């Protein structure tokens, strides 16, 4: 079986070319699978949550983000746990011509060409720049979700789908403020994810990040801009978070096509609660051909009004989960919303009985979706019904 060593030995490493610039004279270089934030002098201090050479690091040569290799070979990087992962990083840094001991590493499944760069300047003239790679479709999670890996008894494993942030602040920050900046970027990330209504894959909730996000904050210790006791409502804090939000939105879009338009999809939104087209199709025995059903599903997915009502119903389901309202109250209201705003009138007593029988939000959403699909099939059969 191919191993990570085989891949690194064999892969061709292209020459470095400039991808962009960060503040403080930092150049972003693309080389092989890496994005290299090359620091122009040794007057920088970095705080990184990355595994290899993380923590506070003085005078690093570079902060890098590396796309994983993909395929089975990628899994060999984790055989032996993070010690192997460190070896992989060191080996690859050598291949890139970087001194591994002076390199701060981060890793992801996202491709570096899909990185997004954003920059801003605070009202007091401090420049901030961020480069982000992002994907959470396969690894989105909400804080507190159940986790699979107990590192105390099992070898550590990474999951694909990670948000990597390398942030440069053209100021001499205290160590505490570097940590603050890292956490501000984190909070900004969770806000963007909320605004995209991106789901957790491990609960019914909206994600707050991926399981494996990493952040590096680069402080220019030689800068005349001295920052200490940074306030969360300061203009610098706002600049940091706005840069983060802008870069993250563009990185999501570039890597996975995740944006407000693609997220406004009823099937995608319902999948957060474990509902999928197959389950919906199983609710009733459709008097329709498969092609008709698929076309009706497409038609339904394009109905923004229905999707808006669906998100309201999902919000009611969330309100039940977080204890704002009782389940019966939420389901009763939702049933009435569906009957008055979504479904065609029906005098079928079975429909009535089944709607009344739904005593939880998932049952109701699934059955109503099936009825709506049936309504859509029927309406498309009527001349000019589309």
């Amino acid at each position, binding site marked *: 079986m191919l191993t990570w060593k085989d891949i690194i030995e064999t892969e061709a490493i292209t020459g470095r070319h400039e991808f962009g610039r960060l503040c403080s004279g930092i150049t972003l270089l693309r080389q092989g699978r890496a994005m290299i934030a090359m620091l122009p002098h040794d007057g920088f201090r970095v*705080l990184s*949550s*990355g595994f290899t050479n*993380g*923590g506070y690091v003085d005078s690093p040569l570079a902060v890098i983000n590396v796309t994983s290799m993909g395929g089975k070979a990628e899994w060999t990087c984790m055989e032996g746990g*993070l010690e192997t992962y460190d070896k992989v990083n060191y080996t690859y840094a050598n291949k890139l011509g970087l001194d591994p001991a002076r390199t701060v590493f981060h890793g992801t499944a996202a491709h570096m060409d899909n990185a997004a760069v954003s920059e801003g300047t605070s009202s007091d003239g401090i420049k901030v720049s961020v480069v982000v790679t992002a994907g959470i479709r396969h690894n989105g*999670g909400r*804080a*507190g*979700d*159940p*986790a699979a*890996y*107990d*590192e*105390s*008894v099992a070898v*550590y494993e990474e999951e694909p789908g990670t948000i990597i942030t390398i942030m440069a602040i053209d100021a001499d920050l205290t*160590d505490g*403020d570097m*940590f603050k900046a*890292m*956490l501000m970027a*984190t*909070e900004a990330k*969770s806000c963007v994810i*909320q*605004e*995209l*209504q991106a789901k957790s894959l*491990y609960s019914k*909730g909206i994600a*707050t*990040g*991926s*399981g*494996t*996000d990493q952040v590096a904050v680069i402080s220019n210790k030689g800068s005349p801009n001295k920052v200490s006791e940074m306030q*969360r*409502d300061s203009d610098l804090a706002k600049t940091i978070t*706005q840069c983060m*939000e802008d870069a993250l939105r563009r990185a999501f879009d570039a890597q996975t096509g995740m944006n*407000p338009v693609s997220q*406004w999809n009823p099937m995608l939104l319902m999948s957060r609660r474990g509902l999928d087209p197959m389950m919906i199709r199983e609710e009733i025995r459709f008097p329709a051909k498969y092609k008709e059903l698929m076309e009706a599903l497409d038609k339904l997915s394009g109905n*923004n*009004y229905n999707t*808006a*009502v669906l*998100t*309201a*119903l999902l919000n*009611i389901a969330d*309100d039940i989960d977080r204890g*704002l*309202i009782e389940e019966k*109250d*939420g389901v*009763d209201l939702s049933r009435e*919303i569906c009957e008055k*705003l979504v479904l065609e009138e029906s005098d079928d007593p079975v429909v009535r009985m089944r709607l009344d029988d739904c005593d939880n939000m998932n049952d109701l959403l699934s059955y109503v979706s099936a009825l709506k699909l049936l309504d859509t099939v029927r309406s498309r059969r009527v001349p000019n019904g589309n």
Partner: protein
Amino acid sequence: MGTEVIQRGADEFTVTFMDSLHDCLSTDFGMIPGLSRITIGNGETSFAEGSLYIHIRGDVTRVSVSEISFNSTFVTAIAFADLSAGLIRSGRDAQTGDGEIVLLILMDSDMPDSTLARAGITATEAITAAVQDLGLAYDGIPASGSIRQTVVTIRSKDCGMYLRGAGKHTKLGELIGRSTIEAVKGSAADNGITINTRASLMEMMDGYGYDQDRIFSLSGCQDYSQFLLKLLEKDADPRAVATVSAVLHIWNEISWGLVDEGTGTEAGMGLIGVGLREPVRSTNLLDTLALNVALYFMDD
């Protein structure tokens, strides 16, 4: 959990470590090796001779503790959370007033500095999750945290277990997330904010710029005491609460660019019609909701 002693007093909340094998990463001071004591109180934030003092403005007796374990991994979250004012959404102007979150994450395992940082990331996400769960908003913006937020992650070097993963997909990360959410909500409750107090039309509308006086002025009622009686009767009606929450969610979705204003408004009007009353239209969906909440109070 390990070798620490937690003491609650009227003026101070203290965690004393019985050895010098604890380090922390703090948003005030960065890395602190050889931590012997952490105190939460109304004094000045400082660090000297192994003792970290964290200032809070609020009542120290409202510090909440949550300890969760899985197999041999233990996490204790200690939080003070006053979410009654001073809320903030990342990148936006903060709400006026005082409010704060102080969070200590005690992990009964050794780990590298980078993992202490990653634990802070996971804990910060959990703070945001707790704030989201409580549906807190100000000036029409859902909040993501507090204007003053202190996070301290603490490792124990004497436990024999060395962990490097603190992301959400690890058990350590899960425990950080769960304990943080529980401790933050616990302290927020002690400071008067719970999911039950949030089940209020007035509380929800207040977060979107419509306080009680504005709702009263929209209600058409001339008698404030009569209005208050109606408010007492209807403010926590679950059907109305769920409806208002759902319409506010659509309002947020409009502002986030998920749905166009026309479609969102149409759907929101439909919801108001089902859950509150036959809607009277105003300038936009939020104004329409506020007007109809006001009229709903006065409906027979």
